[in-house]
């Protein structure tokens, strides 16, 4: 029996009523049920009874729905179809809301590119010195010495240390020393070239460090005196297209050296970059048996399997055996106990080669190292920026939920499961993040040259490595997932009934999490603003602090020794020019990195023991030194040609005066130290005596991270080093060309190089000024991204409130009251962020300033200012949107057609 159309309509309606909405399935069910009912009715059963019997087979409403659910979910397990559909919808959604997509992509890609750059930088820093094959067995000696009131933390060890370690200690396989003697003038025949990366070293250098040779034998290269090994760079410079081995080079016009090896240039990620290695065998100082003079950076190779801690435990014995007996000879009534009692200390420890670049900043580093704290700081900043950008994404997605709530409702009614919706939303965020990552690679590519310039590195994107792309992909997925998971939970949880009726708790009301996220964003931004401000303030403080000398208008001509005996003539020639105020020849300058030398002295008449001795910087200067550098005499007088006895006179700085004599005046007193014998060794019998004629005001001669230590100046018999010139002329070019002209006349063939005192001074703070600029850039980026988010959020609020604004305006609200209404919510959040950020910033700033002996006082208004700046920027961002909304004509928003 055929069912009538009425019956079929009844069945279709009934199925609809029972919630079967899947078109395809509904047709099948209807057909199936009809067929079954028809069969049953053949046995004379009434339609309704037959229908209910068939429904029972299906399991009534529950069974029907279950089947529908299963069918839908089975269909969607097809990954290809699923992805394609999600992908299309995601693309359409992103295009439809292009303003918000743009904000998201812009924020994320800028954030990611910064992260990429920082990551590259950090990886580069961690790679230092790893190219040495035996990196985990190479160590450096670290000496910690307290003597005569001075503290030394240095890389220098005594000359006999290396040989003793290698011969007496089975743990040590080989040891090598380095001795720096400044830069050298190098020539093949005629013209000298100045090379600064020159070092004296022992023959085991190539055995310990992995520095591949291009030519020469690593075993014998540095064994003989007068032999040097040179880098490829130097070989190409002096012997282009020639075999360098066996050739000779002349150093400083008087040392003839034979090239015995050419090695590959040392990689950028090495803590030293020597271009010329001179065989230590030719250096007399290296043969010295003296244990209490530390001048040699000493590295050693630990034997395979040996423990460095065991070796370190033997160092106190080494000191007792070698150092103490020599001290006893020199000092009156010396015992190790008295030595310790007077607050003195001598400790040797070791540093692993791989730790040097990140953990070591001792006296006598070959090059300035990096600091692990900054690595942590950078990583933290990178993470913060990424988080701020991700928060924008979360906030915008959830805030706009109102617009998408209907979509969710309809989808759910059409049979979407929550998991489908979550996947859909996650897909959107993944797409967005992938897109941002791709953009970020481009941005990072553009940013890297700037960053390299700033950080003094040579980083590049590893575009050829598949690993890099894998990393980018993983990064995109992780970021997309983290940023998308909260919105997808939030959006997919809507109940279709509520949403479609229109009474869902929309956008703005679900704002607690969003508000906290905005607060967090601005907390980070304000923190970074304060940090930047303080770094700049400290830098400024250093640059303008009263240093005790005048660093402006001074030019220093390098390597004055190249003039030989004409040094004084040169100086006199120079002084003749009217725009030259003063000139002085000395190697000891009030900037870090110039000559230093230090010996213990005591007031004549007191006993030469640990209590009375004061370790003083011994600076050899000339008559015009104090005038040239603009130091001021506090007591007594300057050196003068009128007094021939000034060759035995000395001028102290205030610290030295205080350390030597406490309160009594020191002018006219005499000070003693042990003199040298003819071999340059200390000779106790030969006392040196100098008379104090003046006291100069304390001046800073090291970085402001250190305090001013006691210092004395006396006249040098043969002044050398730099010619420092104080000039009046505003035109520095003129001064330089004059200096160069005179130089060329007196020293043809010798390179003329010079530096400005304020530049050299600035170099001491290069790390800080880099840190300042990098911080500045990062914090601006953080603020910009946070403001982008705020911008979009206010845009959204304004959009939500168009009707409200219209009504308010019609009822007489002013523009300003509407602007305030729109921005006060987020304004409040920025205020809260400020209150929360200040304590963290205060703590962080104090921690950083700890490392400075002289630090700027960070007043409360700095914090206030940072808060006001952040608030101001946020306010400006918001006001654009809110003023636009407030100015709009109410007619437009209230008219409904």
């Amino acid at each position, binding site marked *: 029996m055929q069912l009538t159309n009425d019956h079929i309509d009844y069945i279709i309606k009934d199925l609809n009523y029972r919630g079967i909405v899947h078109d395809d399935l509904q047709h099948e069910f209807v057909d199936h049920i009809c067929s079954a009912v028809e069969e049953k009715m053949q046995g004379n059963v009434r339609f309704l009874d037959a229908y209910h019997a068939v429904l029972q087979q299906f399991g009534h409403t529950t069974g029907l729905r279950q*089947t529908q659910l299963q069918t839908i979910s089975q269909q969607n397990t097809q990954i290809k179809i699923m992805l394609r559909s999600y992908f299309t919808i995601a693309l359409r959604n992103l295009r439809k809301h292009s303003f918000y997509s743009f904000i998201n992509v812009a924020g994320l890609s800028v954030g990611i590119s910064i992260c990429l750059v920082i990551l590259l930088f950090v990886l580069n820093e961690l790679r230092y010195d790893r190219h040495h094959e035996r990196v985990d067995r190479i160590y450096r000696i670290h000496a910690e010495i307290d003597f005569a009131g001075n503290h030394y933390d240095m890389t220098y060890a005594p000359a006999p240390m290396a040989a003793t370690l290698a011969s007496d200690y089975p743990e040590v396989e080989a040891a090598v020393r380095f001795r720096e003697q400044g830069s050298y003038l190098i020539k093949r025949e005629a013209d000298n070239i100045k090379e600064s990366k020159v070092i004296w070293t022992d023959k085991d250098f190539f055995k310990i460090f992995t520095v591949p040779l291009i030519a020469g034998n690593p075993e014998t290269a540095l064994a003989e005196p007068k032999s040097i090994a040179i880098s490829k760079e130097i070989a190409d410079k002096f012997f282009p297209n020639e075999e360098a081995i066996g050739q000779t080079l002349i150093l400083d016009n008087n040392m003839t050296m034979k090239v015995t090896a050419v090695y590959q240039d040392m990689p950028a990620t090495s803590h030293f970059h020597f271009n010329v290695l001179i065989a230590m065998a030719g250096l007399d100082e290296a043969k010295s048996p003296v244990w209490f003079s530390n001048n040699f950076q000493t590295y050693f190779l630990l034997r395979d399997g040996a423990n460095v801690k065991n070796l370190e435990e033997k160092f106190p014995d080494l000191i007792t055996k070698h150092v103490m007996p020599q001290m006893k000879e020199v000092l009156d009534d010396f015992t190790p106990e008295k030595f310790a009692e007077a607050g003195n200390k001598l400790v040797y420890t070791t540093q692993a080669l791989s730790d040097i670049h990140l953990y070591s900043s001792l006296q006598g580093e070959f090059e300035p190292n990096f600091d692990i704290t900054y690595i942590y700081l950078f990583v933290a900043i990178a993470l913060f920026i990424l988080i701020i950008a991700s928060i924008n994404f979360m906030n915008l997605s959830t805030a706009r939920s109102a617009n998408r709530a209907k979509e969710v409702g309809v989808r759910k009614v059409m049979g979407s499961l929550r998991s489908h919706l979550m996947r859909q939303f996650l897909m959107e965020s993944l797409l967005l993040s992938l897109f941002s990552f791709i953009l970020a690679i481009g941005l990072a590519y553009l940013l890297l040259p700037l960053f390299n310039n700033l950080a003094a590195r040579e980083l590049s994107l590893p575009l050829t490595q598949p690993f890099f792309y894998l990393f980018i992909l993983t990064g995109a997925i992780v970021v997309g997932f983290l940023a998308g998971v909260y919105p997808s939970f939030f959006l997919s949880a809507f109940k279709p009934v509520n949403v479609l009726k229109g009474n869902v708790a929309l956008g703005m009301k679900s704002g607690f999490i969003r508000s906290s996220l905005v607060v967090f964003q601005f907390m980070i931004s304000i923190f970074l603003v304060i940090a930047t401000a303080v770094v700049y303030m400290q830098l400024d403080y250093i640059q303008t602090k009263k240093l005790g000398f005048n660093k402006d208008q001074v030019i220093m001509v390098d390597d004055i020794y190249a003039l030989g005996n004409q040094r004084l003539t040169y100086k006199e020639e120079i002084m003749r020019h009217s725009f030259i105020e003063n000139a002085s020849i000395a190697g000891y300058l009030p900037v870090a990195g110039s000559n230093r030398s230090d010996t213990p002295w005591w007031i004549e008449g007191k006993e030469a023991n640990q209590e009375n001795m004061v370790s003083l910087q011994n600076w050899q200067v000339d008559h015009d030194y104090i005038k040239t550098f603009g130091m001021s005499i506090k007591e007594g007088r300057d050196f003068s040609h009128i007094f021939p006895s000034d060759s035995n006179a000395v001028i102290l700085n205030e610290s030295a005066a205080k350390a030597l004599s406490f309160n009594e005046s020191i002018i006219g007193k005499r000070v003693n130290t042990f003199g040298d014998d003819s071999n340059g060794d200390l000779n106790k019998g030969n006392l040196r005596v100098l008379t104090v004629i003046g006291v100069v005001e304390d001046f800073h001669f090291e970085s402001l991270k250190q305090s001013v230590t006691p210092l004395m100046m006396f006249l040098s018999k043969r002044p050398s080093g730099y010619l420092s010139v104080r000039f009046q002329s505003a035109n520095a070019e003129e001064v330089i060309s004059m200096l160069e002209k005179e130089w060329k006349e007196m020293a043809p063939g010798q390179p003329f190089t010079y530096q400005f005192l304020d530049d050299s001074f600035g170099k001491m703070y290069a790390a800080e000024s880099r840190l300042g600029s990098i911080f500045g850039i990062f914090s601006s980026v953080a603020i910009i991204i946070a403001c982008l988010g705020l911008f979009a959020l206010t845009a959204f609020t304004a959009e939500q409130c168009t009707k409200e604004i219209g009504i308010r305006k019609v009822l007489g609200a002013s523009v300003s009251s509407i602007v305030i209404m729109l921005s006060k919510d987020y304004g409040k959040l920025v205020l809260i962020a400020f209150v929360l950020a200040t304590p963290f910033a205060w703590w962080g700033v104090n921690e950083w300033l700890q490392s400075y002996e002289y630090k700027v006082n960070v007043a409360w208004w700095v914090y206030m200012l940072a808060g006001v700046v952040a608030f101001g920027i946020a306010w400006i961002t918001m006001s654009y949107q809110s003023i636009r909304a407030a100015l709009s004509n109410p007619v437009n928003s209230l008219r409904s057609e």
Partner: protein
Amino acid sequence: MHSPELLKGTLQTIVLKVLKDHGRMYGYEITQRVKELSDERILLTEGALYPALHKLEAEGILKTETENIGKRIRKYYTLTPQGKSLVKERVAELTDFIKTMSNVLQVKLA
């Protein structure tokens, strides 16, 4: 009547084999055919059949065509070439399984 538990793993194979032997079929027809072949001992429930059919369709093993019969729309299923090769595999697999089971249970099949 056999328990649905026992049928669970064989449902797809049964559907595929029936479709292979009869060509084009619609849902109700499949249940009736199976009922007939099994002397009413295997009753495919709709709740299991339709999800399975849709899954096989989505996987490209079955293709469908619809036909209007008055007000009703009837959906016919046929095997795709891919499906045809799968049937042989599945049937062989199942016979093999039955043999194994008879050995395991130590019973002789009539």
